[in-house]
């Protein structure tokens, strides 16, 4: 999957006016002659999206996947019939659970760092004095993402040594682009006429930013954060390479020992985490979208 394509699409989606609310009652309008917004006949795909089918079905799918994993895990006969290497690799309280929390810690903090850096940076780069540096920053962030994640981890390993912090920083750099770009796209996407009207009524630049531009850019920015979060959860599986832990440890053990069962449990767990957070992101996008947009 091309990330660029996907983010481009997400960026666009955020600005699109989907979920149209019912059109105004034609009888109450005093402009009987000018056309009120009409509803387009929707394809099954649009209808499904309008009903938020994906949003409703995703938790069911995730729960089924979780249940399947649970049953599979039980059926392995860990501690009884399973080989001891498998038992030790898949032990919940000493292996899987600590790795899971580590994994989430890495993803959480790297996403937080991305948000804390990229959103203010995106705001600054869309303000007048810094505007012209915007393209340069986006190119740099692009390069950050174009580097192989593996390579990026190694670079940060040489710079900062082993450990969780290194992983968090490396992932933050890696996932900076989508949030930075979406913040800029979202802010730039606000209709100039709306900003002009706000300024013309005597709102200060700060008021226009906080009361108009940011609320209107929220859907696009959230889409960027969601992408960054999912990138970070995926990339956190590589954290084990430089001693950062995470569920990548289990996957790597499975590969090394050629234990498909271990491999399967580890990767399915990562998939469940990624899907769950993607769903949370989708819900947030839906409910944090400003009303009326």
């Amino acid at each position, binding site marked *: 999957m091309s990330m660029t394509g996907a983010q481009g699409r997400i960026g666009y989606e955020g600005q699109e*006016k989907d979920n*149209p*609310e019912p*059109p*105004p*009652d034609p009888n*109450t*309008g*005093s*402009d009987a*002659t*000018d*056309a*009120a*917004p009409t509803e387009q006949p929707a394809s099954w795909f649009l209808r499904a999206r309008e009903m938020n089918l994906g949003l409703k079905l995703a938790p069911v799918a995730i729960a089924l996947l979780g249940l399947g994993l649970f049953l599979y895990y039980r059926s392995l006969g860990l501690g009884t019939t399973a080989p001891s290497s498998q038992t030790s690799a898949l032990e919940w309280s000493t292996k899987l659970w600590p790795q899971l929390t580590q994994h989430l810690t890495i993803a959480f903090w790297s996403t937080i760092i991305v948000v804390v850096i990229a959103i203010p940076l995106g705001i600054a780069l869309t303000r007048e004095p810094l505007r012209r540096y915007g393209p340069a920053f986006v190119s740099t962030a692009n390069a950050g993402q174009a580097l192989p994640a593996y390579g990026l981890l190694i670079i940060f390993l040489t710079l900062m040594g082993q450990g969780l912090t290194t992983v968090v920083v490396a992932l933050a750099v890696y996932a900076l682009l989508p949030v930075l770009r979406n913040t800029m796209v979202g802010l730039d996407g606000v*209709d*100039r*006429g*709306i*900003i*002009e*009207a*706000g*300024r*013309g*009524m*005597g*709102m*200060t630049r700060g*008021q226009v930013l906080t*009361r*108009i531009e940011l*609320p*209107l850019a929220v859907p696009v920015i959230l889409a960027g954060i969601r992408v960054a979060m999912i990138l970070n959860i995926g990339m956190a599986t590589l954290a084990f390479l430089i001693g950062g832990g995470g569920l990548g440890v289990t996957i790597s053990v499975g590969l090394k020992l050629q234990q498909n069962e271990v491999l399967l449990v580890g990767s399915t767990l990562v998939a469940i985490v990624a899907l769950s957070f993607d769903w949370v992101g989708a819900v947030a996008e839906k409910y944090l979208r*400003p*009303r*009326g*947009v």
Partner: protein
Amino acid sequence: MSPDAKIRLDHVEKTYPGTKVPAVESLSLEVYEGEILVLVGPSGCGKSTTLRLINRMIEPTGGRIYLDDEDVTKVNADKLRRRIGYVIQQIGLFPHQTIAQNIATVPKMLGWDKAKVAERIDRLLTVVGLDPDTYRDRYPKELSGGQAQRVGVARALGADPEIMLMDEPFGAIDPITRDRLQNEFLSVQEDLRKTIVFVTHDIDEAIKMGDRIAILGDRSHIRQIDTPERILAFPVDDFVRDFIGEGSTLKGLHFETVDEHVTLEPYPTMHVGEDPTAAVARAREAGTDWVLLLDDQEHPTRWVPVSDLGGGSTVSSDSGSEVVAKVSLGATLFEALEQMLISEAAVSPVVREDGSFYGVVRLTHLNKAIRRARLEAREHYAQLEATS
């Protein structure tokens, strides 16, 4: 400077960085209290720039701007703008706020209390012809273009500013709705008496909306500034003549009314049952081929040709043809001309308020009125030249 100038621009200049030719060059202009001054000109002449200099959306590079004799060239621009209503073509309603929140923007910034703001919102929605209960809590995307611009105007009126700046406010609206909005806005303005600067590229809109019109050329040079009547009657140069284009004389008829200077002529009339020979004699004397038949309330009803009145036949209520075209006292000569063109007898009957016959308007009346207007305008300009 005249005492009632609400807005005064004194040699205002705007030169954009990196350009040598100014966008607005040494512009001096006065806008009187309670008037609509229309800035009109070809695209790129700097009329929008001029408007935006007044609320300092664009900072002037020279000259002074006065509101009520207060120099506002250097005051805090944000605070200045809260005193000035601003309506733009794109409308720019905040899509994430309800209509009520949109209208409350400036009052809230000025710290009005909630009850006063709520009351104001309902007042303004009523003023612009939208039912408050229906529209208050709607979002902008649920409105049609015309409704959105009504809200745009209501929002600009939010904190009851004395001055309004309007930049092609009806430019993106379909012609029928635009016409209605223009009329409604004019009747609102009749009550509110705001001082308004209105920008358009459409000379017809300028003629309709303006108490005065400033026709701008390159770099916002004022080519002519006057009432629409005078500009139509006496364009000062070829630029203005070209700009107001064909039909300026006809447009001038909009500003002459049937009762003002037009001395109406009597016309041969008769009633049902009256002796036709007397009527024929009156028609011959007046030199017309038609007699106007009045009913018993003196309302004009039918045109009867003189040829039908010969041979001693009596006139019934279905002789001749029905009077379809007539105008009331106080109508414009433009309306009178329109009625004249479709009238059987090529004249426009004029009726009083109660519908009774008053007289007729003929083409010669229009001709006289237009020529008088042109003469007056020419004299006015000759006098101006003599005194300057």
